[in-house]
């Protein structure tokens, strides 16, 4: 009964810990390892225009729900302008409106965004409303019908229909029908819009978008892409101007095609260009920024929201349970004996400020010198508390002395001794000397060396960067650790050292 309950609680801890871990890792994309890097793109859109006298308004479409990408961060730079950001009602578009009462000379406005590939796929949506067919003259109507008929013969479904149509459009030597139809529609955007309208004649749901290819660094260009609604999968399929079907790898959808990307109200000469710069950033930073951008409370209530100094402290504190767990394994599964249950963990912790070798040397130095003093004090026959106090005082003095001396010698590492836990060292000195008196020098030295060795082991595990990162970014793994600890809490099998201790009993037996 009691055991079932224990297993239940332990399993619960492990499941909760793993689930939280999985969610953060897979859904929120927190990186598993500290060195993981993510490619991000810095996109700068620059608007230039000649203002007219009087108020000016500039409206720029902004990227919003580009499948496969997330925005980490965005900034607007427009000095002297009032700014509002509006989302349209359908949630499919977003624009910034810059307004200024009076402007003089060339105006330059900037929008900068950092985007990050999140690998998300487009969510299925309902069939959109039908677009309007084009208004055509008689000659054009005949040409359009002929063209559509010809396209229909060469296609099997709506996507291949649209693809065929776009290919006819982009033919270097177009057919007479196409030439006629496109005579008045020279720009790529106009052709995309026209294609959507032609498809409407055939009841094919289509739309077009402005999209930016993030392939190369440098100047970027928004190009029109046609999208055909796939009624079965309930998603949009992408076609480029040449009629190739499929999402290009690095395509960032900027905004809907039926709105001009840039609209400079009243003034003339609005120009718009885009520059793209890719770089690698720390995945953790990217994940945190993305969450902040999405306004999620997860960051606000996580360790990552703490001031950096406090974060550093927690990076170390969170490793203490790991060290304690190692002690549990060593004591209850292996059967190692040490001075004090968690003393090696605390010693290991202090090595974090020095590095292993220097830490061991400094520790042995202080404890060794402290022991000499302690042996002398034995002669003075002090009572316990005064004796501990005087050892503590001596330890502090030794630490100060080592710091000053190493500073003089230019050994910087000696300074970090100040961070050693003096109470721990005092207790170590006392314990070693008591064991020395009671059990003999051999035993005391063996125990002391064993404790130090285990401290080194604990240090090596506790300062392993991947583990440090894992526990700091995913503190919920400590719940898993708690679960395992609970499970081990009633482990009643042999310890490894017991097999050695009782081996004489086993030797007299035979396997039967």
């Amino acid at each position, binding site marked *: 009964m009691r055991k079932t309950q224990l297993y239940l609680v332990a399993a619960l801890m492990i499941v909760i810990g793993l689930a939280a871990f999985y969610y953060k890792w897979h859904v929120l994309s927190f990186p598993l390892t500290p060195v993981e890097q993510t490619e991000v793109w810095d996109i700068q859109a620059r608007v230039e225009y000649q203002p007219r006298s009087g108020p000016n308004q500039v409206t720029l479409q902004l990227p919003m729900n580009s499948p496969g990408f997330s925005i980490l961060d965005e900034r607007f730079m427009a000095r002297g302008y009032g700014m509002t950001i509006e989302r349209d009602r359908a949630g499919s578009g977003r624009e910034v409106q810059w307004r200024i009462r009076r402007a003089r000379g060339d105006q330059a406005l900037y929008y900068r965004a950092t985007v990050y590939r999140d690998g998300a796929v487009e969510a299925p949506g309902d069939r959109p409303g039908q677009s309007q067919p084009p208004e055509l003259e008689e000659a054009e109507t005949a040409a359009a019908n002929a063209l559509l008929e010809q396209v229909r013969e060469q296609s099997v479904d709506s996507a291949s229909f649209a693809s065929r149509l776009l290919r006819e459009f982009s033919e270097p030597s177009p057919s007479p029908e196409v030439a006629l139809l496109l005579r008045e529609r020279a720009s790529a955007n106009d052709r995309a819009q026209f294609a959507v309208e032609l498809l409407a004649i055939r009841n094919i749901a289509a739309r077009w978008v402005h999209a930016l290819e993030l392939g190369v660094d440098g100047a970027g260009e928004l190009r029109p892409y046609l999208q055909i609604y796939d009624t079965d999968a309930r998603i949009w399929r992408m076609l480029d101007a040449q009629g190739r079907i499929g999402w290009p790898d690095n395509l960032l959808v900027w905004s809907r095609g039926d709105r001009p990307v840039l609209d400079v109200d009243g003034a003339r000469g609005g120009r718009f260009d885009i520059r793209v710069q890719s770089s690698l950033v720390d995945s953790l930073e990217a994940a945190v920024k993305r969450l902040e951008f999405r306004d999620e409370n997860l960051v606000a209530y996580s360790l990552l929201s703490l001031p950096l100094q406090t974060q550093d402290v927690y990076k170390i504190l969170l490793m203490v349970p790991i060290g304690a767990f190692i002690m549990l394994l060593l004591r*209850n599964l292996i*059967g190692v004996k040490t001075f004090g249950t968690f003393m090696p963990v605390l010693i290991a912790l202090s090595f974090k400020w020095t590095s292993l070798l220097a830490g061991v040397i400094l520790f042995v130095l202080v404890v060794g010198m402290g022991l000499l003093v302690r042996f002398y004090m034995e002669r003075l*026959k002090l*009572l*316990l*508390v005064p004796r501990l106090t005087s050892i503590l005082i001596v330890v502090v003095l030794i630490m100060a002395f080592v710091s000053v001396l190493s500073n003089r010698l230019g050994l910087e590492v000696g300074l970090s001794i100040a961070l050693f836990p003096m109470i721990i060292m005092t207790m170590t000195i006392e314990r070693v000397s*008591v064991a020395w008196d*009671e*059990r003999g020098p051999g035993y005391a030295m063996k125990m002391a060396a064993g404790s130090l060795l285990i401290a080194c082991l604990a240090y090596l595990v506790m300062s392993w960067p991947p583990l440090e990162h894992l526990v700091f970014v995913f503190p919920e793994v400590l719940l898993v650790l708690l679960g395992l600890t609970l499970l081990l809490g*009633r*482990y*009643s*099998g*042999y*310890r*490894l050292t*017991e*097999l050695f*201790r*009782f*081996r*004489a*009993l*086993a*030797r*007299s*037996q035979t*396997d039967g």
Partner: protein
Amino acid sequence: MLNPFTIARRLRRIGLLGLNARNADYVLLYNQRRFYPRVDDKLQTKNLAIAAGLPVPALYAVVREEHEIAALHDKLAPYESFVVKPAHGSGGDGILVIHGRRGNRYRRAGGSLMSRGEFEHHLSNGLSGLYSLGGQPDHLLVEYCVKFDPVFEKVSYGGVPDVRIISFLGYPVMAMIRLPTRMSDGKANLHQGAIGVGIDIPTGLTRRGVWGTEPVEEHPDTENSIVGLAIPHWQELLLIAARSYELSGLGYVGVDIVLDRELGPLILELNARPGLSIQIANGQGLEPRLRAVQQLQRSGNLSADPIERVAFACSHFATT
């Protein structure tokens, strides 16, 4: 050299009790924490034993305060020999066995002399908790020094052998006698080099010995055989072990008994977490014997009469 898995399998087969199993399956389940002070504090143990009519070394004095130490010299003057021990000590730490005096100095069991100053310092260390579990301030007992029974003279070196009996729910399940050696410095603690000799519960005869991890037949210092010795007053010893269940309230307890030349068996101390070496000394695991008692418990046949419990042990727990 056997591989660890073979060892583990064989040990499991003979039902060897490991530390984890002792703690998880017996100490934690059968020993209620509120009864611990009864055995952790040797003064309480002594008082309870006296109240229950069990024999213990006579108490000469209790030292609770620093200032009482100085007055102790006069108080102990009538006694030629005595033993000072911290009430919460363990593993023999802090125990001072005084065998006599020379002028103003005390003669220790090993023969060395101790000035009054050294004596007082040792006691004040004990009071401040140096030798005690957890290091909390402690009090000291001064008690009768056991004059050990000459039957063991030939098989011990410089100290008092003691008999350890493990009592489970009042049933004496396993026993051994611990013989001090030169290596153990006269102390009867196995890990310090004393010899453990398994005792056959029905007959009270010693069967086999272990020194360190090796089986031995003779005492390494005196070269006398340690096998086949008859423990005097054996039934009385078993009865004391059985009755210590009611006395302590602890289901799983180790009882340490010494044999005095004139007074017979005396309880030295009880132990809520008795060690496991007794299994090596007996060449048997504890688990089958503990299971047998658990079987009685399950069928509701546990006896409230210590004599019946001893009888059950004598008919079931033989060491060959």
